[in-house]
């Protein structure tokens, strides 16, 4: 029998700790597939965040370093400057990249570090139970905003990282994708591949923001979560290439 679709070699054959229907599982596989496709497994170094993907180093079959909360891009900068021939990427969530690590993120992007950043946006702090994050959309109910996020009462508006970083000169590629259906998953795969190719060609900082479901923290079933991204979340976070070239 001929294999048509199989597990990537850059992914260890073990079970993940993610909840049923979590977008992290899909994205871990996509990153592993890109590394396989480009044939860079021997020279890839990933930096895992603090958050639900903290154990990502167990699942990928290449070198992965762990960073303090929010400091993945600072650690990646150090790794990339010591080993300019390696392919260095960070894999971060929204509490990590857009909240506690905002300074590191903006400055790494502004310096134009030649790094790829995969940003998993699930609009809440999933690991700690679903509190409001900077990316929580207006009106979204979380356990710290039980009436929905209200910008007028001082809770602010959701931060659009892809648009924010696209304004910086050091950023060469900024895109927002989603994984709410198989077509979008395949499109996200192409974007992540493009971001890795940009780094190999030395073009600068690439950001791929991915809208990802978090059924456990959103108190929804996996299918309802996918529907919610498609119908509600994309209104606040429009999909598409924001900066390229």
């Amino acid at each position, binding site marked *: 029998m001929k294999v048509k679709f199989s597990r990537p070699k850059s992914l260890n054959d073990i079970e993940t700790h993610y909840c049923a229907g979590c977008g992290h599982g899909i994205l871990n596989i996509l990153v592993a597939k890109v590394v396989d496709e480009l044939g860079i497994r021997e020279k890839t170094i990933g930096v895992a965040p603090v958050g639900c993907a903290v154990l990502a180093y167990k699942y990928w079959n290449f070198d992965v370093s762990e960073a303090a909360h929010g400091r993945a891009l600072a650690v990646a900068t150090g790794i990339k400057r010591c080993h300019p021939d390696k392919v260095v990427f960070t894999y971060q969530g929204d509490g990590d990249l857009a909240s506690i690590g905002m300074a590191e993120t903006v400055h790494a992007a502004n310096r134009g570090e030649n790094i790829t950043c995969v940003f998993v946006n699930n609009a809440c702090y999933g690991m700690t139970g679903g509190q409001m994050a900077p990316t929580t959309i207006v009106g979204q109910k979380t356990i710290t905003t039980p009436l929905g996020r209200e910008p007028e009462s001082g809770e602010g508006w959701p931060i659009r990282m892809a648009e924010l970083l696209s304004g910086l000169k050091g950023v060469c590629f900024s895109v927002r994708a989603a994984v709410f259906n*198989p077509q979008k998953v395949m499109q996200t795969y192409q974007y992540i591949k493009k971001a890795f190719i940009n780094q190999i060609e030395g073009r600068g900082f690439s950001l791929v923001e991915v809208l990802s479901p978090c059924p456990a923290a959103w108190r929804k079933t996996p299918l309802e979560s996918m529907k919610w991204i498609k119908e509600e979340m994309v209104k606040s976070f429009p999909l598409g290439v924001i900066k390229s070239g």
Partner: protein
Amino acid sequence: MSKVKNNIKLSVFEVRIKEDRCKGCQMCLFYCPGKCLELSSKLNKKGVKFAQYKEKNNCIGCGFCYFICPEGCIEIYQK
């Protein structure tokens, strides 16, 4: 990509699911265009009803179930 044999449509593709890895999110069932997958009546080691490949189906090998599975426990083979 399916061939007709004795008026019964036989798919040339086979979907293999590691049933003990399945967490029962049912996304593969929902996104399969030919509805070739179903939920098992049995429980796996985790105690959830897992997705399984129907015996009679018209799988076209599109790989939607493979791409959407967060656990990566689906593989597709061509006979």
